[in-house]
């Protein structure tokens, strides 16, 4: 396994995971502070 290959995969995977988690965290934070009305995804 080559160092560069690992670096590329890890950095790319890490970046995307971080962004996904950030979006989910913000979504959960918003949903908790809104009233419990069922969200209709238009």
């Amino acid at each position, binding site marked *: *396994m*080559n160092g*560069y*290959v690992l*670096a*590329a*995969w*890890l*950095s*790319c*995977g890490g*970046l*995307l*995971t971080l*962004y*996904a*988690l950030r*979006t*989910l*965290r*913000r*979504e*959960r*934070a*918003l*949903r*908790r*502070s*809104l*009233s419990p*009305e069922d*969200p209709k*995804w*238009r």
Partner: protein
Amino acid sequence: MRSARVPSSTRATRALGWSALAALAVTTWWGLWVSPPDVVQGQFVRMLYVHPAVATMCYAGFGVCALASVAWLWPRLRSPRWDRLAVAGAEVGSVFCAATLLTGSIWGRASWGVWWTWDARLTLTAILFALSLGYLALRRAIDNPHSRALVSSMVALLMALTVIVDHYATDWFVTLHQGETLLTPDPTVHGWQLATMLVSFLGFGLLFAWMVVHRYRLEVLEERYETEGFAFALQARRAESRDAGTSGRALAPAVPAVGTAAAPAPLRAAPAVEVPVR
């Protein structure tokens, strides 16, 4: 490689999330272990399973943003949906753009020995990344939802035009980047490598879709947060005038239904407690 559990409320996005994870797992497994090293590039070929897919998703993101902006600008089609889709596409696109630059420069370091080359395709992606940062910064700077949507859709169109013209400009620029390996008529990639590459496109494509859906939903929630916050602020403002006790006649303020929100639901603890991280 991705341990994120994918909680989401509706069945469809959960399915989308899990299938994205599955496809990416297969891509990782095939890409790193199963497929043979390339006769020319040796181990570096494994980056082939990340970089092109991520780059394609980057352009897909800005494509979604440009199309949604056109739809928003079209008088008949205008609706907040397009604006939310535009920002979702742009933000996810800029993340993939960052990933593209990252993997691209690592690949450059590996095969050409230098982190950054003034290669046509890299310059174009860098300009696109800078434009997207400008777009996102601009959206954060404008409060009024209507003019924010209007201004950002115009900027998005300008971005798309600039990218298209850049594309031809960079063709005359000396390019070290080897041509489209996959789309060329006789692909120089075959067997395991081709299979892994296709799976990588599938995996990152599903991930891209999943991210856009969630980012879109985040925008919907944010808008509802704004509307509820507004109703809260409206009541506070009205109380201000009643406390001042200025008017002889009782003011009969019919609470106007503002924008899309139905009558604002009863508010629990002051929403300001959980200010969303912008």
